[in-house]
């Protein structure tokens, strides 16, 4: 018996930027990662560890130098960005990125909702759609349901992020990528958005990866935590292991590993 196909497979992904210049920088170095269906993975790592680069690679902002990316068993390594977006939802730290400011809330939602519809000359907003958006927005209890004709540019960062979140999950994607999507929000709003995120992910059983710098949040959210370093996975901790892991222990593990590398570097240099 074969097991379920994994939702996402990244196989020895490599990417160097500014190749052949003094600024050459290895962003991904033989990165391997497999996500099972329904996994909610939190991603840790210091600046430049390759977290966002990994997301960019999965979304298709650039092509890999070598390696493969499979989504739900399908090879998407060379698929253009906009086509991958059909099955991948993504939220950025910057709330401005995910919405079109001069379109109204309902128009933004309509764009996202009709993602998979083929008929492009049908009217974008039907009465039924509006009612559906309204009920969905009501769930957030942020009074957005009464402001559906407001231009998104007039909303606060938190409200825009909630609209973006709803946009990327109205048609549940195969994979949801959250790139520190609560980092630019005030603590109360951040908590609210996180709570909404958890609910949506759970309800729709969406396979999700979330980048965060908050170790506590990383260990408490989802069912698995990975730590990236220098463009590869350093630790991969599953739910069972995570239960016994404290933030302090995680930091220790990180610095131990870093020291080890440093030592080997020194050895290399001294030879």
């Amino acid at each position: 018996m074969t097991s379920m196909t994994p939702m996402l497979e990244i196989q020895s992904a490599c990417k160097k930027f500014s190749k052949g210049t003094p600024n050459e920088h290895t962003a991904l170095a033989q990165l391997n990662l497999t996500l099972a269906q329904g996994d909610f993975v939190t991603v840790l790592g210091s600046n430049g560890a390759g977290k966002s680069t990994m997301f960019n690679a999965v979304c298709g902002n650039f092509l890999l130098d070598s390696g493969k990316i499979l989504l739900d068993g399908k090879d998407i390594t060379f698929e253009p960005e906009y086509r991958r977006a059909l099955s991948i939802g993504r939220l950025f730290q910057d709330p401005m990125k995910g919405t079109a400011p001069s379109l109204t809330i309902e128009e933004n939602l309509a764009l996202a909702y009709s993602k998979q519809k083929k008929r492009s000359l049908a009217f974008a907003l039907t009465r039924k759609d509006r009612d559906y958006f309204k009920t969905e927005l009501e769930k957030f209890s942020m009074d957005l349901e009464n402001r559906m004709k407001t231009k998104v540019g007039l909303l606060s960062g938190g409200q825009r992020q909630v609209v973006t979140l709803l946009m990327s999950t109205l048609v549940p994607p195969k994979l949801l990528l959250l790139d520190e999507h609560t980092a630019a929000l005030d603590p109360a709003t951040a908590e609210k958005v996180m709570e909404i995120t958890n609910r949506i992910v759970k309800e729709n059983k969406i396979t999700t990866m979330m980048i965060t710098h908050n170790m506590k949040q990383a260990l408490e959210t989802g069912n698995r935590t990975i730590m990236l370093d220098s463009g590869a996975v350093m630790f991969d901790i599953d739910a069972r292991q995570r239960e016994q892991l404290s933030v302090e222990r995680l930091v220790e593990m990180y610095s131990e590993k870093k020291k080890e590398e440093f030592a080997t570097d020194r050895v290399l240099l001294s030879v």
Partner: protein
Amino acid sequence: MTLLIGSLQLGLIYGVMVLGIYISFRILNIPDLTAEGSFTFGLATAAIFTTAGHPFLGILASLVAGALAGCVTGLLQTKLNIHPVLTGILTMSGLYSINTVVLGGTPNLTLIGKETIFTLAQSAFPMLEREAVKLLMAVLVSVVCTVALVAFFRTRLGLCIRATGDNTDMVKASSINVDRMKCIALALSNGLIALCGGLIAQYQSFADINSGVGILVVGLASVIIGEAFFGKRSVTIGFISAIFGSVVYRYIIAMATKADWFPAYMLKLVSAVIVTLALAIPAIKSMMEVQKIRRGGK
């Protein structure tokens, strides 16, 4: 009176061109210089068809011709990654030669004595006055175009184009082909501009290779004048204000040409100044704010 009605006719017909400029300038956020070439392209195409005795086909052909020109600009921008302003200049320059070819190597062509959509409409309604028929045609054309555009920009495709000019990242994330959207929008915009060229050729019964010179500034000025009256609100209001701005622009011109002290050749400069001022308002406002704060601080 003739001047009043004449300006209204011209304003409504040129309004179709302003709709096209509104799409590229306000919705797509690109100042598209292709307009200068595509206007004449439509004018020349319609003129040739009209001399051959097919006025209606000529109007249709001018629309298609403009759309093709827009596609070329779009492809240069998206597939070859050339700067948007430069792509417009390239297409416009290339079109100058093509337009001369279309006109049969001559710089101008007269359609006097040929059947145009205006003369045909006249013979269909013989009881109406000539100017009234022309005015009706102008109203019909501008209303049909506006209504069609308002409907189009409420479809999914229309919404995608609006979002493309607004936030490219978001559009990509919504699984929309940004390149295709830009091409479609530019084709639509230049199609309308060329359609206007075709209408103008038949309206004046005359086609000149230099008709398109300065048309972009005329269009921008009209868009901005319209917005001065209606404000920047929804796209629907934007289209209506574009037509309105075009009419007001023609009245300004009519007044200017009526005044003896004002030579007609100064019109282009006046248009350019109007556009410059309108575009400079935000900068001037913030400069004044800074001055105010500074003075207050002392």
